[in-house]
């Protein structure tokens, strides 16, 4: 019996060794010269395979960079540091790219928004959306089951106690995976330096909003009127801020009756300093 065990182990081991040697020789013989730049770039890229560049994973982008001469600024999580290092390898110039972060356009926590019932299904936004649409009365707002937080590879979105996602701006790289994950398109990628932000996506008007949500945008348009439509204008009962056109009168935004426009004073002053 022991002999049998020894013989079987020896024969399989011997076979393995023999084949291993053959493969080793073959590997030398059939060696392919891969462009070493592909490997170098692959090491620089973040390696999270988020797909924001439009190629299948980081290695796909690295290959495309070397072989197809694609734009070097496509890696969003890597931002400017990665771009600079790729540029050094490929001998190209870097382009300035505005860095983006994710913002959640909903403030409808459980005290703010009316309920239609109790959703006991699978705790997933996309499933809730295709079945009954969750249990909140607002047809536009956050469902609150955290698909965005689950998909974030950087641990930058967390579901708060209010059952709303909160973005950690320091960790957010702007890859945009959460935007794709949200079935209600609540998350928006915004320029990191923008100072106005509309915290609602409801396209309804007036009472249709205030009946279901205490904090939602009712589409009154006072922000746009005070500013004479310069920089802020109304579209589908929602204000749209054009940060390039904006002249500097922030009173309109501050007159918002539901306080749905977020005004980030620090970023505004930072920008003002630059202009002066």
């Amino acid at each position: 019996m022991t002999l049998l065990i020894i013989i079987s182990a020896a024969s399989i081991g011997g076979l393995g060794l023999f084949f291993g040697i053959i493969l080793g020789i073959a590997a030398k013989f059939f060696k392919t010269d891969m462009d070493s730049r592909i490997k170098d770039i692959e090491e620089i890229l973040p390696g999270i395979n988020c797909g924001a560049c439009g190629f299948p994973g980081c290695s796909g982008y690295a290959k495309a960079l070397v072989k197809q001469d694609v734009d070097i600024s496509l890696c969003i999580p890597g931002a400017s540091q990665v771009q600079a290092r790729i540029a050094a390898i490929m001998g190209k110039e870097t382009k300035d790219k505005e860095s983006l972060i994710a913002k959640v356009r909903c403030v409808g926590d459980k005290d703010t928004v009316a309920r239609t019932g109790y959703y006991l299904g699978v705790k997933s936004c996309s499933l809730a959306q295709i079945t009954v649409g969750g249990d909140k009365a607002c047809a536009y707002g956050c469902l609150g089951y955290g698909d965005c937080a689950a998909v974030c590879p950087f641990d930058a979105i967390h579901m708060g106690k209010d059952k709303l996602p909160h973005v950690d701006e320091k960790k957010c790289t702007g890859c945009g995976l959460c935007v794709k994950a949200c079935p209600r398109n609540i998350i928006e990628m915004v320029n990191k330096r923008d100072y106005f932000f509309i915290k609602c996506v409801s396209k309804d008007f007036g009472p249709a909003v205030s009946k279901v949500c205490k904090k939602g945008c009712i589409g009154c348009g006072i922000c746009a009127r005070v500013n004479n439509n310069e920089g802020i204008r109304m579209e589908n009962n929602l204000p749209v801020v054009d940060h390039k056109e904006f002249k500097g009168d922030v009173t309109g935004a501050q007159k918002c009756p539901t306080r749905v426009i977020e005004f980030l004073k620090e970023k505004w002053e930072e920008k003002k300093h630059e202009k002066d």
Partner: protein
Amino acid sequence: MEHYLIIIVSAAFINNFVLSRFLGLCPFIGVSKRLDSALGMGMAVIFVLTFASVITYMIHRFLLLPYHLEFLKTISFILVIATLVQFVEMVIHKTAPTLYESLGIYLPLITTNCAVLGAALLNINENYNLLESALNGFGAGVGFTVALILMASIREKLELARVPRSFKGAPITFIIAGILSLIFLCFKGIIAE
């Protein structure tokens, strides 16, 4: 001579590995989108199957049988197949990089392709000698390639056909695989077994 011809035809058509024995279905569905990559995959499988049959026969005849180690045949055959696939992968990577790209993940998947292991084990079951084993492996490879090419040419046409929306993609592919399999049943009975 006739006997050898029968072995090849039998392995290739009558007992077609994909469509009658239902072995190796993963690449059959996976690599049958384009005709040229189907052809390349077929060639790789023919090569692997033929050589695997020969080497597994020799291992069985000269190593496993004399030392009464028949119970090791599955694991040792897998070892042979894995090595061969690695080898083929290196050769294709060196000689035909575009083919290598288009085969993608399916080339290493020949390793776990049950058609290859199936052919090797069937050779032992049928008590084939060395030449018969090689021919059986070759025939099985040809049968696999034929099935793959048939499927790929149909699927290329299918891209342009008006398929009902709910049948697009995988469902229509499986239905066609079923119909092809039905057609191959017609070969049964050509040779009295």
